[in-house]
C-alpha cells in the first residue's frame, strides 16, 4: 500500500502495518470530531511516525497515486478540516 505524508513524500508500507495505522487514524478522526487539538496532534504524530518507521520511501520519479494521504506534520486541526472538503486546501 502507498501512503503519502503531505509535504514529505510517498512511502510503500506493508499491509501488516495498516491495522495500527487505522487505529491511529480513528483516533485522529475522533480528535477532529470532538475538537481536541492536543489529541489531534498526538494522533497525527503517531501516524506519521508509524508510516516513517514501517514504510520505505518511494523513488521521487514514481507516478503512482497513493492509497492514503496524511496531513503534513505541522498541520493544525483547522487545516485538516479544510483538507477534507473539495474546496479546501488542495489546489487544482
Amino acid at each position, binding site marked *: 500500500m502507498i501512503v503519502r505524508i503531505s509535504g514529505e513524500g510517498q512511502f510503500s508500507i506493508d499491509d501488516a502495518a495498516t491495522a495500527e495505522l487505522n487505529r491511529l487514524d480513528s483516533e*485522529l478522526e475522533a480528535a477532529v470530531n470532538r475538537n481536541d487539538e492536543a489529541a489531534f496532534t498526538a494522533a497525527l504524530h503517531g501516524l506519521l511516525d508509524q508510516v516513517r518507521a514501517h514504510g520505505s520511501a518511494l*523513488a521521487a520519479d514514481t507516478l503512482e*497515486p497513493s492509497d492514503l494521504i496524511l496531513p503534513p506534520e505541522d498541520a493544525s486541526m483547522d487545516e485538516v478540516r479544510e483538507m477534507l472538503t473539495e474546496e479546501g486546501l488542495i489546489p487544482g
Partner: protein
Amino acid sequence: MISARSRGLMAAKMLMKGTAARMGVMKRVSLVFKAKANKALDKMEDPRETLDYSYQRQLELLTKVRRGVADVATSRKRVELQMNQLQQQSNKLEDQARKALGMGREDLARGALERKASAQGQLNDLQVQYAQLQGEEEKLTVASQRLQAKVDAFRTRKETIKATYTAAEAQTRINEAFTGISEEMGDVGMAIQRAEDKTAQMQARAGAIDELMASGALDDAVGGQRDDIQSELDMMSASSDVENELSRLKGEITAAAPKQLEGGANGNSQGAQAPQAGTQAPQGQAQPASIPAADRPAEPQDGEG
C-alpha cells in the same frame, strides 16, 4: 472500462459517504485528491491533448515552486538581518547598563536594561520564526526536486503514450500517471500555499519590528531620537575618565619619586593634557571643583557608529 466521468462521481460519492460513515482522515484526504484529478480528467476530449496541457501546468508549477523557494529565502534573510540588528542593539544596551552601573547610576542602567529586555524579547520571537522559515525553505526545496523528477517521468510516459496508443487505449494508460502527478501537484501546490502564508505573516512581523526600531523604542540612542541614556553616559564618562586619570596620576605621584612626575603623566594618558585637563561639568555630577574646565579632545565612548 470505467469512464473518467463515472470515476469522478464515484470518488465524490465515496467522499460524501465518508463524511457520514467513519472512513478515517487518511482515506478521505486521498479521495479529495482523487476527486480533483478526476474532475480534470473528465474535461478532456482526447486524453492525449490533456497530457500536453497537464505537462504545461506541471512546468508552470515547477517555476512557481522555485520562485516560492526564492521568496522564502528572501524573507529568511530579512529576518536574519533584523536578528543581527536586534542582537547588536541588545549588546549595546547591556554595555550601556554596565557603564551606568559603574558610575553609580542605577536609574540609567535600569532604563537600558528595560530596552534590552524588549529587544531580547523580539529577538527570541524572531529566532522561532527564523527556524520556521528555514524549515519551509527546506521543504519547498525538496518538494521542487521531487516534482522535477515526476515531471521528467511524466514527460517520458506522455511521449510513449502519444506515440504508441490510440485515443481509446491512451485513456487507461494515462489514468494512473495523471492521477499520480495530479496528487503531487496538489501536494506541492498546498506546500507553496502554506509557505506563502507563513512568509506573509513573517513579512508583517518584520515590518512591525522595522517600525519599532525606527520609533526608537529599542534604541541604544546613538543615531536614534531618544539618546537620553547615551548622552548622559557620554557626559558622565567624560567626567569620570578625567576622574580616573586624576586618581591614576595621584597614585603615580604617591608611588614614584616626586621629581619624575611629568614624564610619567604623559606616557600613556588618553587625554592629551591629562594633568591639566578638566571636564565639562555635567548637571549635578560630583566632580572636583578645583580643576578648571579645559578643551579636552572628544573621545569616542565606544566603537559604535
